[in-house]
């Protein structure tokens, strides 16, 4: 019995998902089920905070500061998604009680991902997460785009899972273990097979974090999926996959870092540059956010490529700030309505500030923050990433990073330009949904006022990487 209590938050989420599934059959009140799901996620936050740090089940499952911080970020992402669901479920034709339950299962998968210290636990978590996401992407059955997004994500996701599994089999075959720490002890660093294994696993994980060259699915899925689910894609799974990537690389192949560092190095540069250029031509705001997220993952990967405590610290700072910025941006995207219909074209934002001056200035500041302009939070994320890069003597990476950030400033500025400088087409309703304001204002003010006292986030990130360094 004691064994089970170690993973009480996971069990709690699992049980509440099952109970809600049964309740959903009898109760037609979807809002109630959704609120119960939010409640259970909030309880899970408290449970995770109070968990003792230890590694359990033959060291295949680790609960430490790192996993707890990631779990809390994932919970925040899930809660935000559920709140968005409440306000938009009817207009988006996704008024199904399965939504909160799938989110809960996906959250459970992500919790396993960030705690996994074993190839098998990792794969189980990843698949649980992915299977829920495939369904979520296609949830709007009446929409061609949504179905396309679901199918596309499913086929490419299955392919990447295959690659991942293939890599896992290589690693197991050449090291004789599935446990991350035991792999680190037992491998033969000359072995080519192991290297192939790392490459395939990294390819699979790069797909999950949507880093170039495995990013193809991202724009289509972001565009096709209903907006709350797009927000979920941007908020939770990427962060979870990043946590998994870090633990996999640092725990099992920390000594072998010269081999995988260059892979990360390459995908980081490719993500930053491709996103900076590709986003310029986008006309759909969700597609633009897809490229923006690819770019941000590129920056976050600089933190991984540094292979240092500063690198990991900067990665965590970056992810926290990324999460908050995206919450704000996606609540705005979800509230862009005209004549009761959502719109996604960037050009439809024109003249927004004449009708909604206060909202617009906040959105504009979010865009500046995404571009990394001080004094907004996004600047501090990039600042720490570059500190880590220069400390590890990766000057080239840092220079590419700043060049990409100047280029990407252009497309963020374009949105500001359309909102402020262009003449308005028609009036639109703007941020008028009470439940979204709860998300929008706190996250925006957090980004804007972050500079007043950034120390807590930085100390938290330092604390969270204790188990690695």
């Amino acid at each position, binding site marked *: 019995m004691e064994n089970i209590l170690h993973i009480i938050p996971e069990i709690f989420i699992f049980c509440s998902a099952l109970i809600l599934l049964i309740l959903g059959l009898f109760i037609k009140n979807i809002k109630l089920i959704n609120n119960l799901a939010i409640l259970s996620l909030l309880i899970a936050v408290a449970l995770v905070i109070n968990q003792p740090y230890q590694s359990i089940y033959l060291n295949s499952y680790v609960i430490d500061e790192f996993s707890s911080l990631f779990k809390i970020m994932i919970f925040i992402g899930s809660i935000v998604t559920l709140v968005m669901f409440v306000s938009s479920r009817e207009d988006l034709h996704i008024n199904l009680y399965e939504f909160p339950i799938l989110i809960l299962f996906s959250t459970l998968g992500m919790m396993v991902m960030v705690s996994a210290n074993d190839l098998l636990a990792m794969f189980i978590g990843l698949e649980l997460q992915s299977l829920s996401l495939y369904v979520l992407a296609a949830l709007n059955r009446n929409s061609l785009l949504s179905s396309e997004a679901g199918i596309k994500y499913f086929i490419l996701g299955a392919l990447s899972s295959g690659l991942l599994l293939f890599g896992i089999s290589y690693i197991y075959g050449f090291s004789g273990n599935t446990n991350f720490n035991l792999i680190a002890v037992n491998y033969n660093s000359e072995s080519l097979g192991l290297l192939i294994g790392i490459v395939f696993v990294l390819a699979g994980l790069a797909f999950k974090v949507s880093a170039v060259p495995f990013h193809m699915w991202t724009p289509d899925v972001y565009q096709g999926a209903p907006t709350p689910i797009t927000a979920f894609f941007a908020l939770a799974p990427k962060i979870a996959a990043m946590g998994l990537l870090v633990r996999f690389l640092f725990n099992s192949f920390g000594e072998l870092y010269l081999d995988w560092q260059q892979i990360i190095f390459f995908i980081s540069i490719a993500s930053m540059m491709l996103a900076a250029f590709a986003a310029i031509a986008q006309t759909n705001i969700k597609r633009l956010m897809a490229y923006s997220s690819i770019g941000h993952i590129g920056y976050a990967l600089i933190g991984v490529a540094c292979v240092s405590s500063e690198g990991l610290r900067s990665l965590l700072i970056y992810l926290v700030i990324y999460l908050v910025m995206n919450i704000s941006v996606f609540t705005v995207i979800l509230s862009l309505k005209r004549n009761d219909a959502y719109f996604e074209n960037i050009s439809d934002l024109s003249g927004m*500030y*004449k009708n909604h*001056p*206060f909202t617009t*200035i906040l959105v*504009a*500041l979010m865009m*500046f923050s995404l571009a990394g*302009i*001080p*004094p907004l939070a996004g*600047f*501090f994320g990039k*600042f720490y990433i*570059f*500190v880590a890069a*220069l*400390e590890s003597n990766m000057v080239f990476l*840092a*220079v590419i990073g*700043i*060049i990409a*950030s*100047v280029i990407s*400033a*252009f497309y963020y*500025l374009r949105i*500001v*330009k359309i909102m*402020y*400088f262009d003449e308005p087409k028609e009036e639109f309703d703007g941020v008028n949904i009470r439940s979204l304001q709860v998300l929008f204002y706190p996250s925006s003010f957090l980004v804007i006022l972050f*500079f007043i*006292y*950034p*120390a807590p986030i*930085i*100390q938290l990130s330092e604390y969270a990487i204790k188990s690695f360094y």
Partner: protein
Amino acid sequence: MNELPILSILILLPIVGIFFMTLIRNNNDQSSNNLKHTALWISFLNFLISLYLLFSFNQQDADFQFEERYFWIEYGISYHLGVDGISILFIVLTTMLVPICILASYDSIKFSVKEYLIAFLALETFMIGVFCSLDLVLFYLFFEGGLIPMFLIIGIWGGERRVYSTFKFFLYTLAGSVFMLLAIIYIFITAGTTDVSYLLDYNFTRNEQIVLWLAFFASFMVKIPMWPFHTWLPDAHVEAPTAGSVILAGVLLKMAGYGFIRFSIGFFPEASELFAPLIFALSIVAIIVTSLIALVQEDMKKLIAYSSVAHMGFVTLGIFTFSVQGIEGSVIQMISHGIVSAALFLCVGVVYDRLHTREISRYGGLVSKMPMYAFTFMIFILASLGLPGTSGFVGEFLVLLSIFSINTYFAVFATTGVVLAATYSLWLYRRMIFGALIKDDLSEMLDLTRREIIIFVPLITLTIFIGIYPKPVIDIIEPSAKKIVSQVNGKLN
């Protein structure tokens, strides 16, 4: 009295003003007048506080004064403020120009008055912060943060090609500055801190200095701006609203000059000495080439913008002589240019508000209808070309004196810039003010209103006062300039 965090008050007061103003509704003329008055009084109060700062400043002390230091991000990056004899003048210049700008925008801004004023007050916070900060990260924060309100001011309230200009302004400046960011990070890693007063005593190796100097140079060169990266400035000036041009010429360009004095030569004296010939060459090219370009301009604002580039060439010349005279001359030249070019843009604004064109050939013979305006414009034109008795003369003279002691040829070439300045300025004046009043719509023009007189009187007074009796200003600069020069010489030997 030193316990009062007066610099923080200066930085925060505009923010408090913004909070007040967000509470005021803006739905009719009455309320938009309220907004204007609120912003004006807040910025005027800030000006009074900065005057108090100036009078309680100890002129004999060359160290940083009114220092404040709080824990901010982590060990080595703190919230550290302080002023010396150089930065305090820029702070007073900033706080003086902002109320003037707000007053100048009373009639010319027709829509979104509230947002405009909020952007201006935010810009004031960033500008004061740049001159107060004694921490490189804090400095960068304010230096770059100012881009956001300026981007909006040009982009929303600017002229026809405002989008192109504001993008060019933003991206040019950003591209230059990110290299400075990398340099700041490198300093943070090698020296362990970004505290300016600590770094002024820190010795970087020669190779480090060269790379870091170039990175800082990339940022300041674009911002000041030096030839050949000056092209954003005429565009930005032409499209910006009058008050935006005033702030751009009056304060934003000075940030880079201040950065050269404080950081480039303070931290990297060896590299500065090495690159000084490059700076001299670029400055002299800038002085001559942009003066020639100014000669052929059809647009008044463009002409003044090019003349700004030429004037800033004198500033960089003076700074890199590493002499007390040179630095004093540069600072006075910057202060003087801050007043004079600001006033010239205001003069352009006066006629633009009446005729809505900046084309020089559309004017002529204004003196018969607008005598007061002709007088005002004349004073600033003369100050701009450096006539003795105006503030423009003092700075240029000191700079030429210091450059003469280094290299006679440089001095000769730089002096031709003064002649060219006289040519384009006087020619502009002749075409606009003198001649026969033959264009019909000009005969309807009214002379300066009371509000415009209030704007110009302090500027005229200062221009002439500094020109005739510059000693009070030099007294403030001198201890700090001497300290900088002795620090540089100490490091070089």
